[in-house]
């Protein structure tokens, strides 16, 4: 019952050759006809529910599934599998057995599900993983992984810090591919600047309360920290600084909770030294993955590769813009305090890719009234990252390097 993780991923060595190796018996199982009278059986399999991120993603998907025309053509069901690989395997098998046409799932493990995914593909089920990725070749992955959050956010921080200072690392959940990859990217950047001293690090488990407790403790031991790098638990981390050192804030990068965005956009706080970046992985990648999957299912879209990129959200403190309505329109990206709780994740919405969703839709999981599903713009394919989203593949040469922020020279 430790901090239950939001996402889990893989990044290891060469992988399975599952293909022909599986000797499965298909007895008794009807082959799902792919489009009987434009009617589809679609499942959403959540890993854990009960935290902000997962809920926002799930609500977005649910809202889309209830948006015309999908409200008529899609028989949609949600299942919560928890954090157990075994449980998720069992649920995915149940879905396959129940004649699913497509399954959108948040994978508990990047590799542990490969066998059941192969089973699904054998039964002609579209298998889509969102946010976290799987290495099974027949599955599709929709994520922001190749947005290189680790490298870009770290470089951004280095730039803001002028290449020197004491910093704290708030890792995610130990033992997950995502944490491993982001750590490698970020630490690779930080190491290049000898002026940057990492004075403390902890595993905040993508949890705000845990992060807050830990930052409070680190500040007590290191009263002079200048920066905190996070992937999630960012708002909690910042809260700890505001409580214990209200007059001298930090450079910080991380998640996109509304309260956090409001803070980093606040001129008064900026004057006390707060320089924040709101980026990291957005829950909107779930609904986006759903749209991609449905277009593939209905034949509107043919994917040429299995790894689809959901663009990495990126809002530095100087680009925060308050919204007046219930959606991200006209480039606004944060809601007033009165509209949403502080922990609401703004990247649950995406005005460009997901115009069907507004605030109420992702808060309640209900379709926005009057909305219909709009066709997607052309999809971008993601980098192949061996052990993360593919097995026998080659990563781009610079996959650990920042590609969005220009590095400053190392100060003397």
């Amino acid at each position, binding site marked *: 019952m430790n901090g239950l993780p939001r996402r889990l991923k893989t990044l290891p060595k060469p992988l399975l050759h599952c293909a022909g190796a599986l000797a499965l018996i298909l007895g008794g199982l009807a082959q799902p006809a792919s489009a009987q009278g434009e009617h589809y059986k679609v499942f959403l399999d959540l890993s854990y529910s009960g935290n902000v991120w997962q809920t926002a993603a*799930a609500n977005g998907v649910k809202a889309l599934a209830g948006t015309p025309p999908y409200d008529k053509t899609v028989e949609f069901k949600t299942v919560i599998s928890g954090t157990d690989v075994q449980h998720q395997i069992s649920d995915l098998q149940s879905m396959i057995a129940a004649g699913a046409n497509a399954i959108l799932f948040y994978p508990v493990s990047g590799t542990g599900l490969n066998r059941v995914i192969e089973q699904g593909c054998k039964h002609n089920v579209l298998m889509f993983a969102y946010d976290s990725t799987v290495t099974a070749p027949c599955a599709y992955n929709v994520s922001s992984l190749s947005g290189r959050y680790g490298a870009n956010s770290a470089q951004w921080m280095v730039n803001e810090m002028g290449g020197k200072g004491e910093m704290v690392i708030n890792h995610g959940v130990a033992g997950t591919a995502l944490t491993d990859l982001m750590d490698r990217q970020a630490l690779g950047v930080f190491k290049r600047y000898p002026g940057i001293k990492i004075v403390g690090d902890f595993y905040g488990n993508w949890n705000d309360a845990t992060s807050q407790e830990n930052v*409070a403790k680190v500040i*007590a031991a290191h009263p002079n920290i200048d920066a905190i790098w996070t992937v999630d638990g960012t708002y909690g981390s910042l809260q700890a600084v505001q409580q214990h050192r209200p007059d001298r804030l930090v450079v910080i990068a991380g998640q996109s909770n509304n309260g956090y965005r409001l803070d980093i956009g606040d001129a008064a706080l900026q004057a006390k030294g707060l320089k924040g970046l709101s980026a990291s992985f957005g829950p909107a990648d779930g609904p986006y993955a759903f749209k991609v999957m449905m277009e593939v299912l209905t034949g509107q879209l043919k994917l040429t590769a299995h790894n689809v990129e959901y663009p990495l959200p990126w809002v530095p403190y100087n680009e925060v813009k308050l919204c007046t309505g219930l959606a991200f329109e006209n480039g606004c990206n944060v809601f007033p305090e009165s509209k949403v709780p502080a922990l609401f994740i703004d990247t649950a919405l995406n005005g460009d890719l997901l115009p069907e969703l507004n605030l109420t839709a992702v808060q309640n999981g209900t379709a926005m009234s009057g909305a219909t599903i709009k066709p997607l713009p052309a999809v971008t394919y993601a980098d192949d990252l061996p052990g993360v989203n593919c097995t026998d593949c080659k990563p781009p040469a610079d996959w650990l390097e920042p590609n969005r922020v220009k590095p400053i020279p190392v100060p003397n």
Partner: protein
Amino acid sequence: MAKRDAPTLSESKPARLRAHAARANPELLPVAVVLACAALLIIATKILNPGSSLTQQLSAVLVTSIFLVVASFGQGLTILLGGIDLSIGVVAGLSAMMISVLTNGQNASLPWAVPATLAFCAAIGMINGLGIALAKVPPFIMTLASGITFFGVGLGFTSGLAQRPVAPALQALMSGHWLGVPIPIYLIAGFVVIAAIFQNGTAEGRQLYAIGSGPRAASVLGLPISGLTILAYALSGLCAGVSGLLLAGYSSAATLDIGDPLLLPTIAAVVIGGARVVGGKGIYLGTFAGAIFLSALETVITVLSLSQGLRNIIEGVIIVGALLLQSERWGALRRWSN
């Protein structure tokens, strides 16, 4: 077996000697040892980071331990009865969610929202107690099952995120200072006094010890076993609820999983504090010391900057080590008092 035979001569002089030892309350010794270990850990952090201030350290350790300090009191009561409460994390989460939903970011509704939330949490505890006392479901399973069930209910109602912020007064409570000392430290002090008095200074506390120590004797004697069992679990629910309120105030926003990381540490704190898992033994001050120790341990580990694997190994080894130290010390005490 040997020990059972040992007191055979107790009614002569050694017995009278031991009467004095008993008056010094031998259970306070483990408390002192565990607290000393915690102090050593805090000092170790100071040595590792000469730049840090000891009082800051201490206050950080104390403030972040408050959730554990409160929740483990309830856990301690159920363990005193020979039971256990595995629903603590879920109840804390539900409490945090409920206070956010009820207060809706307004202080005005706190006067009724806080009692309502705590009553709800105590009611969950009471359901646990009813199942255990009346339906005779083993506590491990009863509380495990009720935790899972109520988590599902909470999920159904809230989808995991409170859509409203926590009342500012609660946030101020957790982040404010008074006379330069963080308010949570006063809260801890007050809570420890109340909890210790309840457990060791009231008739009900005494009867809980009796039930935990000899359940069959208690039933022959006609002690209100069911009532007190229900009371203990209700209090455990209540403490988890208070812990959840504090967590919500501390992190200014509530999620359903906010209390999950509390569960195992509450058990560890109680046991490190010298309680016996099958009941009848252990004082709240011990549990308190255990909670402080765990909080201090986490601080040291954070500052050491190790990989999570090594952190876990160190944490596990230190928990076992703390137990070892205790058993050694108990042995020494026994030798001495005999």
